[in-house]
């Protein structure tokens, strides 16, 4: 799907960047790690390379334009996509060269405005040319890899050895160095794991999310004794059938109910509009050995707890067998991620776009609480809501957390 992409922040301190050169033109295919543009930052001229295999549909900021990070500079998507709606949504001022913030960087002190001195791109990857080509062809990300060649150069052997199970690229019939090749370096080199397609998707989507979605976080600690008690009673009833409700099953239902009560959190920022969802479809993060997926429990607000429990188990099982269909993993309106079982007290999750929020569930802890002048043991749980500030404001998020707290602390309300 076509989307507007903002200027990436290419240095930690970058507050604005000048597009000194577009290496790609409108209509050009862009491969992973291919140079899109050169951007002059406060530090140096940096290379902006693509994370995706995509097509540059529209350039929104001309060469020489200086813009702030995240300011829209281009539209990427699939060839032939209609981008008229995106163009309508794209507010002009930030990207036009004549706008106030836009200063052609070369036009300083009467110097030759046409030819900004080329600067050395930074961030070279030490890889043999052949490895670079293979990386382009196979969409492998070489950054961060330490190769076994001189000076950490990534050489073909590194790719071949570690991607042994991957299909060989066409035209590379066994040209790799003989296996006897392994060098006996003093310290073991890192194991280089080529990106799986799931890992690549995770990386791309999360970077996209963190780069494009303005996150903010709200944390609340709630009493979980009642919820645990209810769960205990329900599980006792289910014992004969051999089924069980997890705490997470209950929380899915509670979150769904809270979304009904505070619909502002059940919304998406869709470039030119906010979509207020009419259904409550909760994405549930499921950890896998090599990543995670987020299958969706549809209409979670309308389903019974057992129904939810069964569905989650079925989805998780499919996920582990890698048999989830794409439609079972997309179209959620809200996500829940629970690391409580790993003993994590609290954490902030990354939003799963285009959802507007995600809740991160921590571990249940028994803590001593002073109540009515006496010390009591109380079970508590921390929830952190990550919100897309473009669609969910602080107050709305707080209201939702309050609704959740009420439901957790008085779970009988679920019966109403």
């Amino acid at each position, binding site marked *: 799907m076509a989307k507007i992409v903002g200027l990436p922040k290419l240095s930690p301190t970058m507050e604005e960047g000048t597009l000194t050169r577009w290496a790609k033109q409108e209509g050009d295919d862009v491969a992973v790690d291919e140079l899109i543009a050169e951007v002059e930052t406060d530090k140096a001229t940096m290379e902006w390379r693509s994370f995706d295999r995509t097509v540059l549909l529209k350039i929104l900021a001309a060469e020489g334009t200086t813009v702030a990070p995240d300011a829209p500079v281009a539209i990427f998507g699939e060839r032939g996509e209609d981008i008229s709606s995106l163009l309508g949504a794209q507010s002009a001022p930030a990207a036009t060269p004549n706008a106030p913030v836009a200063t052609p960087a070369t036009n300083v002190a009467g110097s030759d405005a046409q030819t900004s001195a080329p600067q050395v791109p930074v961030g070279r990857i030490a890889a043999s040319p052949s490895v670079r*080509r293979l990386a382009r062809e196979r969409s492998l990300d070489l950054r961060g890899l330490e190769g076994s060649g001189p000076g950490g150069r990534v050489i073909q052997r590194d790719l071949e050895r570690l991607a042994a199970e991957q299909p060989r690229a066409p035209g590379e019939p066994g040209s790799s160095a*003989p296996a006897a090749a392994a060098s006996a370096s003093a310290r073991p080199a890192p194991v280089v794991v080529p990106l799986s397609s799931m890992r690549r998707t995770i990386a791309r989507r999360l970077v996209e999310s963190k780069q494009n979605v303005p996150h903010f976080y709200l944390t609340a600690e709630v009493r979980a004794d009642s919820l645990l008690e209810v769960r205990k009673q329900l599980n006792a009833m289910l014992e004969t059938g051999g089924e069980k409700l997890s705490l997470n099953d209950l929380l899915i239902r509670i979150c769904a109910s809270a979304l009904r009560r505070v619909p502002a959190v059940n919304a998406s920022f869709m470039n030119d509009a906010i979509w207020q969802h009419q259904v409550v479809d909760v994405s549930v993060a499921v950890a896998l050995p090599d990543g995670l997926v987020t299958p969706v429990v549809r209409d979670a607000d309308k389903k019974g707890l057992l129904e939810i429990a069964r569905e989650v188990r079925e989805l998780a099982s499919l996920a582990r067998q890698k048999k989830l269909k794409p439609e079972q993993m997309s179209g959620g309106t809200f996500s829940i991620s629970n690391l409580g079982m790993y003993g994590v007290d609290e954490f902030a999750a990354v939003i799963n776009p285009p959802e507007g929020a995600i809740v991160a569930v921590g571990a249940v802890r028994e803590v001593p609480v002073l109540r009515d002048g006496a010390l009591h043991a109380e079970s508590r749980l921390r929830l952190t809501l990550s919100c897309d500030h473009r669609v969910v404001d602080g107050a709305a998020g707080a209201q939702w957390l309050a609704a959740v707290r009420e439901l957790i602390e008085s779970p009988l309300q679920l019966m109403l």
Partner: protein
Amino acid sequence: MRQLRYRDALREAMIEEMERDDRVFLIGEEVGHYQGAYKVSQGLLERFGERRVVDAPIAEAGFAGLAVGAAMVGLRPIVEFMTWNFSLPAFDQIVNNAAKIHQMSAGQFRIPVVFRGPNASARQVAAQHSHAVEAFYCNVPGLYVVYPSTPRDAKGLLKTAIRDDNPVLFLEGETLYGIQGDVPEVGQEELIPFGSANVVREGRHVTVVSFGRPVPMLVKLADQLEQEGISMELIDARSLRPLDTATIVASVKKTNRCVVVHEHWPYGGPGAEIVDRIQREAFDYLDAPVLRASNLDVPMPYALNLENEVIVTPERVRAAVRQVLYLD
């Protein structure tokens, strides 16, 4: 095919071409009555007479220049240098006259002359007699430079050289003269075009490009490396100018690694030219820098043990091969 020695293959080429074209004649020191310093021209005087097998005094600039002058007006001389070391007194004739007159006259005069003789070190003949001249002459546009390593190539390339309308520098090897190899039967004429490299051996792991004298040594090395699990592709460039870039590049694109082996000194020359073309045309296919194995960068010493060290050795080639394979 029949077996022929390299020197006999050269002689056959000259005989066939001299019989074919009366304008072709052989001139050089000791080519006639002495029967050739290295017996390449043995029997030619008896066959063709003094008119066409011309013993020259020791005057390389004189007879090389005479050949160029004769070529300007339509003869087709073959000049034998007793060794290429002796071409240096005739350097001006080769570089300034043979190579330039066609161009300076805007094509009015052609220089169909072949300069031939043994190149590079022989055995223990010391610094002045051990030049490998290809690096000098390959730098000169207007010249062709070829360097066969087998009897078959020697014959096929020499026939092509004699028929070409340009000055051709034909490098042989004293230690190649005695090697035997397949040569097409008499009557089966074979002209090997310039600019066509020969894939001597196919391999998968590394391309070794060479020309002239080191090639037989590299064939043996390929066998040894095969035992060690290294599959070496061997390309004999055969013709250094023009150079068959396509065959070399195609091989490097397959193996991703390359070592260029030559007997000329390491500063520049066709060895470096080959490396340059590879980095330009196969850059994205290289897994390691292209390395060269060559003579050491010193004048050739006399003592056998020293000479053996200075001339490009199989050990140096092996080391370079292992290095581009990241084996050491």
